[in-house]
């Protein structure tokens, strides 16, 4: 829930937090006091923030396994395992909530909030924590809009005569940048954010130049480079390349 008075600096701060510390996600919810009730509202005059650890593949595996229910499919004797969505969200809090701006200390043990601490965490105003969990949950899923853009851009990117994608979305950008930087220079996701920007740009320009020249070479090379000798002269092979 982004408030209406979000400034460019707020957005930059959020992006920087994400790059600087990829292991943490900070979420903020505007709130308003109605009598003695604290409710999340878009035009709220206050703000509550919470820091969650980034929801990883391992977190999802553990939480999904813990909340899986056996569901019978129709009359058949087939069963599927489905995670219970409400319990899933409760475990997300227990597993990933690190700190928050509420005056309730978060105590953790072995990577989880302690039962005594959760007793207090779970007793805060429901809509407030629910809104914080909503914000955190949105950082863990691919939205319908994101999926549609990925679908469209990957169709262009992987087409036969592709020349890249203009205005690439985050997924395509990450796929191409991380892929090429890892392949060429062995830089991984953790190391890339601290590379000086000028050097990053130089490498990116050079990678683009290399790609352009490779494409150019493929376009200008006519016929097969394999020559067939016959009667004192050579001619290009008419054989078709398979594969």
């Amino acid at each position, binding site marked *: 829930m982004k408030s209406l008075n979000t400034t460019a600096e707020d957005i930059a701060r959020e992006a920087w937090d994400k790059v600087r510390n990829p292991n943490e996600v900070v979420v903020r919810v505007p709130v308003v006091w109605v009598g003695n009730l604290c409710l999340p509202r878009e035009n709220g005059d206050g703000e509550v923030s919470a820091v969650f650890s980034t929801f990883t593949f391992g977190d999802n595996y553990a939480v999904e396994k813990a909340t899986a229910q056996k569901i019978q499919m129709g009359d058949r004797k087939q069963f599927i395992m489905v995670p*219970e969505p409400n319990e899933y969200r409760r475990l997300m*809090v227990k597993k990933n909530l690190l700190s928050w701006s509420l005056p309730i200390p978060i105590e953790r043990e072995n990577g989880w909030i302690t039962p005594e601490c959760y007793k*207090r*965490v779970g007793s805060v*105003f*429901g809509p*407030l924590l629910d809104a914080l969990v909503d914000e955190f949950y949105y950082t863990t899923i691919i939205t319908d809009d994101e999926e549609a853009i990925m679908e469209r851009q990957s169709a262009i990117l992987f087409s036969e005569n592709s020349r890249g994608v203009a205005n690439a979305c985050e997924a395509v950008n990450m796929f191409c940048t991380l892929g090429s930087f890892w392949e060429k220079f062995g830089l991984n996701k953790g190391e890339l954010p601290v590379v000086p920007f000028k050097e990053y740009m130089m490498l990116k320009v050079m990678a683009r130049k290399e790609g352009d020249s490779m494409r150019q070479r493929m376009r200008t090379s006519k016929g097969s480079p394999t020559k067939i000798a016959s009667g004192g002269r050579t001619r290009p092979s008419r054989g078709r390349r398979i594969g």
Partner: protein
Amino acid sequence: MPTIQPRESVKDSKPAGNEKRVDETLMPPGKYEVTPEHTFEVVVNMRAEGNRWVITQQSGKGVETHKVTFRMWTYDEIVNLRKAATTFDAVRRMHLVDTDLLDRLKVQKLMRSWTFDRDNPRLKIHRVNETLTDESWESFKKLHPNIIRYILEKMNEILEYNG
């Protein structure tokens, strides 16, 4: 032969029965934690028209006013109640929330009092372990459907849509 007996002088470290934990006594619930005082009221203004009741916005002449008090729900209660009202549709492969059941659970868990029992003892509500009994839910259901719908709408305005 000596036998080993438990020492009577050693007390159990766990608090007995009603005894409160020391940390809870020293650090009572803060302003963000739900206590029985965190309530809100749904005010129902209604006017009799023939043998039915019409909900009105303002109180005035011929308008009867009643109040229903609910407690705010905690995050843990949200999860528990939604979980109880959620089923998995195996055909469509998606979770569905039975909102009617969820509303019933909210009323039984969170309704503290109402004034409809002022002149009608049959509408008196009773609670066991902080939960409205099924008989009291039956009393709730005795109201006209439009009054019930209005109460549920106003309750959900706060609980689900943040007022």
